[in-house]
């Protein structure tokens, strides 16, 4: 049950830049492309950029021992990209790239995803002491070397990604804070290292990560596999924790921005102004560190730091009711330059749904187009290259504007989505329902469900049921670790096959524990949080679903509709739960009740005594003389006095 990254690994940033305008024009004659291609003659700019920002993972039970992410094999066979050489490695030992992807969403909202990637050709694993830092942030580098971290993934999210309205995000993350770390196998005491690491990270990111302790840490056996190159997937070296209650705000953004080489002084990071970022529907920022291959043969590894920030702006909250978005409207800034330290700096606008420009209008127009398979769907992007002065035009500033023409916003039917809720009423028991929707019309696929439930919800595991389409659905793999009170949470992982076009419901009953009175939070009546459950899946790609072959494609690429490459990896997080526990009323009436109960108890005792006993008047004690006299009288046989 390993879910390793396979050879064609995910590079959301541009990894390859092929300048092949003529080739692509001839092979991809989509109308939009043709239109642009005819205009492009400028030899300085690559007219067509075909990249591979495919996030694709193979998910199988084998160990990952070879990982060749920077491989030409990443090119999809069905993509008309000719083999070509890699871009020459820069002479410097580290490299920085920045990128912004803007996706206009069906609902009229807009999704902006920043990615900043720093690759550093160094290897902490060898134990060599590194003291010279250039682009890579020193604070993180020190942490990684001190705690022997192989991979580190941390995300802070405010809000819940609305899959039904927005589709899949490029990088999923649960509400609150999520941290998962793979340690190197040289670490002897993983728990102690983890504890220390969380405290250090808490300081670096100004977040309450120090609240991560053994009661909310789990070791998933299958759901979280290393994303970089890794020799082993022994989950003893993995720690996973979420803090669903964590609130993300400016104080988390500032330290995050400080990790960037240019800070927020230049480049895309100029746009990251908190007053606008936190005036949005969804905000998520993350840091991912992992070892990646330096070159094709993967002899040496480099360290990759990827900082991402995703934000969704709300159409309705922005007022005016006009369906129109621009960089200025989103971020209250425009762009004037790329980060001087960046080797590439680009803005991508997803124009897939807009081939004829009938949905929305983009200005300034760009001639650069790019295609990529993202989340199993072939997308077309308009590209603005910030390293080219031409992009900024005569006004020396770039303000991309998207103006909608139609006003429809239907619900989407994403292939996989999940939701969760607490059923029942009262404060004694309850039931957690997790619903997983497979909306694929004809393919079933397996998903891995990870549930981590705090100990104070005592799960009745015998009530665990998995049903789809009204029938029992037996999971092929279940990993359950029972909780220990005040020590560790429940961990439930299972592999479930989702039938096509179905809802699979996982239910488990629980009992609400009565906490000790010091264990209640200061606001006990708010409720207690249960973190999101994680659904990881290899989902059949919509590219393969597309049976419409009217588009001109090479015939050999369209014969077999489903191919192994046509499934892609996604992770879906459900909403966290807010559960009320039986809570004493920590106020005056509570004391009154306690007092009254004591009084009643005492009173009842005495009253019961009185009712059940019979009382008699006892003769008063006779005096000593009288007793002696009586003894004598008894001896004499005379009745006593």
């Amino acid at each position, binding site marked *: 049950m390993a879910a390793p990254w396979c050879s064609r690994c995910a590079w959301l940033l541009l990894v390859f830049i092929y300048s092949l305008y003529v080739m692509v024009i001839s092979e991809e004659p989509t109308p939009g492309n043709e239109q642009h291609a005819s205009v492009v003659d400028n030899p300085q700019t690559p007219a067509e950029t075909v990249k591979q920002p495919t996030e694709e993972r193979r998910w199988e039970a084998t160990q990952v021992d070879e990982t060749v992410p920077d491989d030409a094999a990443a090119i999809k066979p069905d993509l008309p990209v000719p083999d070509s050489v890699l871009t020459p490695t820069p002479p410097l030992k580290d490299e920085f790239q920045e990128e912004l992807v803007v996706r206009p969403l069906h*609902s009229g909202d807009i999704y902006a995803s920043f990615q900043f990637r720093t690759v550093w050709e160094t290897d902490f694993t060898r134990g060599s002491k590194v003291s010279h830092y250039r682009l890579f942030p020193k604070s993180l580098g020190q942490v990684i070397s001190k705690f022997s971290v192989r991979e580190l993934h941390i995300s802070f999210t*405010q*809000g*819940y990604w*609305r899959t*039904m*309205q927005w589709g899949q995000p490029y990088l999923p993350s649960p*509400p*609150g804070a999520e941290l998962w770390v793979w340690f190197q196998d040289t670490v002897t005491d993983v728990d102690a290292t983890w504890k220390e690491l969380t405290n250090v990270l808490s300081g670096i990111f100004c977040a309450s990560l120090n609240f991560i302790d053994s009661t909310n840490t789990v070791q998933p056996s299958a759901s979280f596999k290393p994303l970089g190159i890794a020799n082993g997937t022994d989950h003893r070296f993995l720690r996973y924790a979420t803090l*669903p209650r964590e609130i993300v705000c400016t104080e988390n953004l500032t330290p995050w921005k400080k990790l960037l080489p240019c800070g927020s002084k230049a480049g895309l990071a100029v746009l990251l102004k908190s007053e606008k970022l*936190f*005036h*949005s*529907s*969804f*905000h998520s920022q993350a840091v991912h560190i992992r070892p990646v291959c330096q070159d094709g043969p993967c002899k040496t590894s480099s360290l990759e730091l990827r900082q991402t920030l995703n934000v969704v702006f*709300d*159409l*309705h*909250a922005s*007022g005016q009711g006009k369906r129109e978005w621009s960089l200025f409207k989103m971020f209250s800034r425009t762009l004037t330059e790329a980060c001087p330290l960046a080797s590439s700096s680009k803005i991508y606008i997803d124009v897939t749904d807009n081939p004829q420009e009938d949905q929305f209008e983009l200005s300034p127009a760009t001639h650069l187009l790019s295609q990529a398979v993202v989340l199993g769907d072939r997308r077309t992007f308009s590209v603005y290259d910030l390293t080219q002065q031409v992009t900024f035009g005569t006004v020396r500033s770039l303000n991309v504007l998207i103006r909608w023409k139609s006003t429809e*916003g239907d*619900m989407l039917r994403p292939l996989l989505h999940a*939701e969760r*809720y*607490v*059923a*029942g*009423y*009262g*404060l004694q028991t309850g*039931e957690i*329902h997790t619903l997983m929707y497979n909306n694929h019309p004809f393919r079933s696929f397996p998903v891995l469900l990870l549930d981590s439930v705090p100990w104070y919800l005592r799960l009745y595991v015998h009530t665990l049921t998995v049903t789809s389409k009204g029938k029992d659905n037996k999971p092929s793999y279940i990993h359950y670790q029972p909780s220990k009170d005040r020590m560790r949470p429940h961990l439930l992982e299972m592999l479930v096959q989702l039938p096509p076009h179905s809802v699979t419901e996982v239910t488990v009953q629980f009992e609400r524990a009565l906490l000790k009175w010091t264990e209640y939070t200061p*606001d*006990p*009546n*708010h*409720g207690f*949080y249960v973190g999101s459950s994680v659904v990881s899946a290899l989902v059949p790609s919509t590219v393969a679903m597309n049976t419409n072959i009217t588009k001109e494609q090479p015939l050999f690429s369209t014969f077999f509709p489903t191919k192994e490459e046509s499934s892609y990896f996604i992770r879906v997080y459900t*909403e*966290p*739960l*807010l*559960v*009320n526990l039986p809570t004493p*009323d920590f*106020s005056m009436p509570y004391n009154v009740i306690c007092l009254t109960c004591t009084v009643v108890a005492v009173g009842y005792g*005495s009253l019961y*005594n*009185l009712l059940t006993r019979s*009382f*008699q*008047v006892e003769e008063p004690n006779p005096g000593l003389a009288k007793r002696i006299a009586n003894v004598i009288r008894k001896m004499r046989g005379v009745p006593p006095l």
Partner: protein
Amino acid sequence: MGLLSDPNRRRALISLLTRLNAPICALCYFAGVCWFMGLAFEPFTLRTYMSENAMGSTMVEERFPSGERALATGKEFAAHKKKVGGMPVDWLVKTMQARGLEVFTQSFSRTLPFPDENKERYMVKGTNVYGILRAPRAPRTEALVLSAPCSPGDNNNQAVGLLLGLAHYFRSQVFWAKDIIFLVNEHDLIGMQAWLESYHHTNTTGMDWSPLQGRGGSIQAALSLELSSDVITSLDIILEGLNGQLPNLDLANLFYAFCQKIGVLCTIQGRLQRNDWDSVSGYSHAVQTMMLMVMKQASGRPWGDHGLFLRYHIEAATIKGINSFRQYKTDVTTVGRLLEGMFRKLNNLLERLHQSYFFYLMPSLSHFVSIGYYMPAFGLLAVILLLRALDLWVQLVSPPAIAADGVGDNAQQSSPGVLSVLTPLVISHLTGAALYILPTRFQEIAVEHFPVSETEAVVLTVIAVYTAGLALPHNTHRLLSGEGTEQGWRVLKLVAVLYLAVLLGCTALINFSLGFILALTLVPVAAFVTPHMPKTLSAVVLVILSPAFTLLFSVFFFQELEEMPVSFQDGWLLYLSVISQGILDHYLYGSLVYPLIALMVYPCWLLFWNILFWK
């Protein structure tokens, strides 16, 4: 306790209590009633105050501007409702979607145990439409609900219009921290019940509903809106919910605070509050308001759509617009602003409403009587039962000296004692069970054999079984071997009195009003019934003080309080429909009053009936 463990003093005390038992009991009864009436006297009550800090100190501004548009939407809704002849589901879905909500529908169906003649429904099928306003940057853990029923006829169109208007306005605001669910439910309470059961995935009443597609986490508070005119003169808040449950008092305080702030006339039980508490009419006004609340609470039925929320520990109230012949009118924009303010304050809540009282009575909207103040009134009535029990106990332990053959009696008494107590207990409870089960089970047979409708059949069966129970003493005696003894009825009465005390005590803890009203009629019966009274007269008194007559008087009294007095004929019809409604409430929403009366209170009363006819 030293006082009691000294046998001499104890004997003195007990003899005092037995000797003065009747006067003390009468005094207690009188004092209990007086205490209760005194609760409505303003100097004895507390002013309401906001306990929840999160709602108290935070200032919110109400800016809802578009009342006119909301009315226009309401008219459009009315037109579509008329066209479809029911709930215009498609139109609602489209309208809500246009306002930027996530819209879902839920269909449900329910066959009633017997036709509801008041609302003319038997097989109910409907659809609820709800839209969720997702709070920005909130993880879907908490939600608030605003609901408006889609009523038949021309009712409540303005409420739906205002709901949609508020949805549109709320959607453009960024300060929401909780999801807000806008729900339009069909078939009022049945739809609401279906929605709530589906939301919490429970099924307590055997309703068929389709599962909900979208949720917003745990619901913190809910408001239900009823508005049937373009302008209103006052707003009424309805608090009484299922089984006499009440929402946290802070919700009522919130409503009152905003009415004061915005300057809308607000009422409770449809009555304005008066300032002349020291005058007789002012006092009687307060008493009437409180009595209305007591009557409504005792009925145990939900008095608005909010009533069903309370079972799920969701604080909820119904706000009803009233348009009477007063001069000063309030427009819908103002009502919208009031709701906006309330929702913004609820949105500010960090915890569920829990700071203020859950048990209270309200003689006016600005004053309340907390549980600590009203419980003594009940306690004074309940203590009568305990005093009588003590008296009986003493009589049983020390047989009266007059009986010369007391020794012989004592020896005999032990064996028939158990039987003579157990038989009436079992038989009366079986009668109670019959009263609970037979009416709905045998409605088909009744309809076949008698020219009545199903509803009539049920109600008449109830009355028939109830009356048949009165023949119980004769049947009991047939089962009993030999004559009942003097000791026998005392033991039975002791058991019955204690039973009644426990029963009423438990009822009053959950639903004070019901417990108090029952105590008011049953306690005198329990206290003074003996076999040695003039049979006919006491039988009449006993029947008049039985639960069924209590209900009949309550119906007339309630009509009197509502200022809609009815003739005896109408009152009787109303009485029959109240019985059928009570049974329906039990089967549809899980109200517990009918089973309580049938399975516990009525058998308990039968025990006293038995004692009267003891031979």
